[in-house]
């Protein structure tokens, strides 16, 4: 039994060192409640039911108000850029003129002039909460009524102004402190900007985008929503922020794979929903999620189609937009490259590819290697002194 004891001691020591290397001695500290994956406390079934009903009511109310807006709309025959309607309060006439001027320059900046599909922008100024017997109407969700819902040539965008822009538009605060109004208006055009620029999408592209709630076509402009500052990239894709990895873990696998530069992941993230041959409802109301950047399948997905259009040019984009071929085929034909390949390059332009798979800390790896070398030396030494009797 005596010769066995040193080996037991060596084995136990090795296990201890390994444990020391890989397991934090005082246990891992929680990074706190994740703002991306955390769950709100569950309500009672009755409360959940009431909340679901309220959500349904809000969606129906939003659709109804958009349809009412369309019916009561008086369009300006001389206006090429979007017609602007204010709801909830009446801003002073000079504020209305200013908004129209800003919108005109936004429209020109997007390269738009006279378009087949016109846009009406309904700016909902903040108003007091509703009465207690009905849910509060949607005041913080952007909604779009696409063409073909009422007539074929009007896309309506309903843009809640919130307290910030309401104060600005009603002239209650000093306008020197308000920046980014043009970017806000431009971002508010959403899918309507695509309808204006490229017309109604064909059956394939239309049902693909409807299946994914237009997450790839929320923004047509070049510099990004709010001039990059508030884009999904700044919110979710910046490794300098402490929540970056929480955000990564909240994404679906294809999105994460694309962030890692994998072409197959990028392809899957772009083509999600393309296989569905779903019908587009009439009226077709697109309700953008409150925190739309958290439910994207691509980062920064809101500008993906805009970037595709700028890259391939108008003619090739129109070929894709109205194509009767599957989305994968039509998009690859427009890009003249496989979708996954182009998208992976596009993604690399925004986010440095993340590393996937296990990555042991440098110190732990060094200790493990040292142990391995030590074990080899001990074994070699023991073997060299081995005697056969």
């Amino acid at each position, binding site marked *: 039994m005596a010769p066995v004891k040193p080996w037991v001691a060596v084995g136990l020591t090795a296990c201890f060192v390994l444990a020391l290397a890989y397991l934090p001695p005082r246990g891992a500290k929680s990074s706190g409640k994740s703002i991306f994956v955390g769950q709100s406390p569950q309500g009672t079934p009755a409360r959940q039911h009431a909340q679901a009903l309220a959500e349904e009511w809000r969606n129906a109310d939003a659709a109804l108000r958009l349809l009412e807006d369309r019916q009561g709309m008086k*369009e300006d025959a001389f206006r090429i850029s979007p017609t602007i309607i204010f709801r909830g309060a009446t801003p002073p006439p000079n504020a209305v003129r200013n908004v129209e001027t800003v919108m005109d320059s936004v429209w020109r900046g997007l390269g738009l002039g006279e378009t*087949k*599909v*016109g846009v009406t922008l309904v700016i909902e100024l903040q108003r007091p909460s509703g009465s207690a017997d009905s849910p509060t109407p949607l005041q913080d969700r952007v909604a779009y009524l696409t*063409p073909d819902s009422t007539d*074929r*040539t009007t896309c309506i965008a309903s843009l809640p102004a919130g307290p910030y822009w309401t104060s600005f538009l009603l002239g209650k605060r000093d306008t020197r402190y308000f920046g980014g109004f043009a970017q806000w208006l431009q971002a508010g055009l959403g899918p309507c900007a695509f309808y204006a620029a490229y017309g109604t999408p*064909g059956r394939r592209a239309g049902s693909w985008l409807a299946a994914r709630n237009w997450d790839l076509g929320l923004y047509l402009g070049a510099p990004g929503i709010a001039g990059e500052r508030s884009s999904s990239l700044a919110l979710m894709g910046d490794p300098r922020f402490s929540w970056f990895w929480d955000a990564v873990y909240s994404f679906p696998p294809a999105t994460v794979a694309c962030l890692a530069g994998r072409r197959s992941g990028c392809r899957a993230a772009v083509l999600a929903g393309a296989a569905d041959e779903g019908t587009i409802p009439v009226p077709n109301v697109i309700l953008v999620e409150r925190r739309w950047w958290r439910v994207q399948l691509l980062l920064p997905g809101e500008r993906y189609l805009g970037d595709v259009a700028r890259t391939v040019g108008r003619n090739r984009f129109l070929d894709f937009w*109205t194509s009767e071929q599957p989305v994968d085929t039509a998009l690859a034909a427009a890009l003249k490259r496989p979708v996954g390949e182009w998208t992976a390059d596009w993604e690399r332009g925004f986010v440095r590819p993340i590393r996937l798979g296990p990555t042991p800390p440098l110190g732990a790896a060094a200790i493990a290697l040292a142990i391995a070398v030590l074990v080899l030396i001990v074994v070699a030494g023991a073997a060299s002194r081995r005697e056969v009797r």
Partner: protein
Amino acid sequence: MKAVVVLVATSIVTTPAVAQRWQRQVEERAQRAVQAIEPAKPLNVVKRSGMLNLNESVSFETTLRQGQRYAIVAVCDDDCSRLELTLLTPSRSEIAKEANSESLPTLHFTPSTTMSYGIRVVMGGCRWNPCWYAVAVVPLGENPL
């Protein structure tokens, strides 16, 4: 049949200002086409106009008189590359079809019976949806036979 019948497109009730350019374009083209077919300014020309997305179709009915020669012509806007025109019986059977003349299909027809005939327009090619179209049914005079 992939085409979708779009009833709302049969008449332009609330055409916004932005769309008037294309509407004017097809109305002028229809007018020129009618003059080319019958320079004598024919009376009772039936005209319909509207807009269709790619591969959508629209049908309407019109009464054609026995023994009267008719030309049915359809035009569309600059973004349209192919328009199909079909003449139908009340039971929706095809009498004549023109699908080969790209954006200016024309049919000539002399009814043997006075009744309501169907005219179907299919937007076979449209680069920028929706595309505007106009159809004119032009009476050319009595058939001499």
